[in-house]
């Protein structure tokens, strides 16, 4: 039995099987009318809603994605400046580190309406919210990266006559890049969620607004469709970050050994 299972998993990847099984259960639940159809639409209904709304969702998604990407870029810039200063000057580190941590305990849901009140229904409050949610993981990733620099490497460069800027360029910055990307990967998924929450609370375009609209209409099938769509958008953004990471860290290719390459017997 186990052998048979392993044969199956050997041919198709495990996550595909998991999803397929879940879909079958979902389908069965709807078919057997265990949950009323208006509360839980069947996968087929969702697929239909997805197909018929995709153009509309894509149009709204462009707005959301724009906010997420602009916010992410600004978040990166802010995180870069702050982390670099924090690494360089100890008093800035001490002054800002607690604030950084506290800023993460503020519920985004609570500040989003404030931002909307202050900045209006345009893109500004949404981008601001994305910046607030994304810059923390990036800044922490960068900081950890900077801190992991080997002091011996820095001394070696100094013995070669390198100045501070050269040490930063040749040692500190490249050492911090992997940490930066781990932060950015997390931040990129936060970015979409941040933009959605801000849209949810006010405005007249974007996927978040669309979500509130279908919710008010009790169109469960469309809600599921939009959730699937948002997942896809987030995954796309994360994949994009991965791609940039691969390109900027060519030396890592030889090192990363993934668990699936280890064959079990």
């Amino acid at each position: 039995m186990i052998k048979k299972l392993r044969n199956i998993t050997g041919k198709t990847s495990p996550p595909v099987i998991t999803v397929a099984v879940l879909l079958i259960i979902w389908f069965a639940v709807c078919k057997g009318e265990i949950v009323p159809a208006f509360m839980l639409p069947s996968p087929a209904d969702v697929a239909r809603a997805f197909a018929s709304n995709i153009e509309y969702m894509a149009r709204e998604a462009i707005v959301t994605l724009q906010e997420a990407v602009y916010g992410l870029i600004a978040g990166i810039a802010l995180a870069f400046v702050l982390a670099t200063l924090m690494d360089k000057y100890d008093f800035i580190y001490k002054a800002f580190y607690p604030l950084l941590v506290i800023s993460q305990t503020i519920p985004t849901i609570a500040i989003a309406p404030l931002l909307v009140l202050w900045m209006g229904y345009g893109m500004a409050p949404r981008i601001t919210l994305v910046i607030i949610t994304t810059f923390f993981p990036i800044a922490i990733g960068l900081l950890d990266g900077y801190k992991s620099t080997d002091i011996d490497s820095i001394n070696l460069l100094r013995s070669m006559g390198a100045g501070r800027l050269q040490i930063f360029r040749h040692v500190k910055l490249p050492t911090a890049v992997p940490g930066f990307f781990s932060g950015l990967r997390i931040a990129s998924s936060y970015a979409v969620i941040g933009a959605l929450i801000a849209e949810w609370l006010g405005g007249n375009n974007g996927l978040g607004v669309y979500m509130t609209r279908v919710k008010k209409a009790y169109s469960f099938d469309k809600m599921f469709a939009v959730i699937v769509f948002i997942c896809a958008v987030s995954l796309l953004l994360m994949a994009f970050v991965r791609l940039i990471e691969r390109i900027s860290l060519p030396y890592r290719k030889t090192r990363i050994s993934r668990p699936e390459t280890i064959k079990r017997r």
Partner: protein
Amino acid sequence: MTVLSANHIYKSFGEKQVLNDVSVCLNDGELVSLLGVSGGGKTTLFNVLSGIYLPDSGEVYLKDENVTGKPGKVSYMLQKDLLLPYKKVIDNVSLPLLINGKSKKEARETAGAYFEIFGLDGTQEMYPDALSGGMRQRAALLRTYLASEGVALLDEPFSALDTITKSRMHKWYLEIMKEINLSTLFITHDIDEAILLSDRIYILNGGRITQETVIDSAEKRNPDFNLTGEFLEYKKKIKSFLE
């Protein structure tokens, strides 16, 4: 001719006097070892020689130039090769040239010319992770050579290597020193290694040079030197100095 000399160096950290009137010199083409127990001030002396630390008093001369507290003239190499994993071997090796203001292309060309002599040909475009321990040390050595015009400070460079690789590296190192006219100041705590490689040995103990031994055996470059009675005599003598 003296290529590198440190005269009456004093250096303390807080209350702790780490170097106490230390004078060493290195002549052209020589290999001189600094032998001593850990914490004896060897590494501090190296940092003074390479200009990273400014001594409390005393001077460091590279040929006729006063280089006290001036980094960028004499570079060193540690047991850790400190090759940057994100730079290709050629860029690692040519880094000192780049830092001294050469263009990337120029630096690569200058460094590239030495790859064959150092037995590194073909590794130019590789990342350091793809190299073996011995190869990495060679690359680090080439980088040191390019950083410091004929003088190399080596801080236990071979101590992480296995015995066979180590003795191969010893042989190789003595050859290449002659070929590129390199003078070497060498830190080690391995008495055998010091006797085998050195022309002279300084013993650094408690922040002072307590003894200087010249190895002038006729057998000294013979591969079986360490099996001779003369070798053991040297070893006995040096051991007694260290205790």
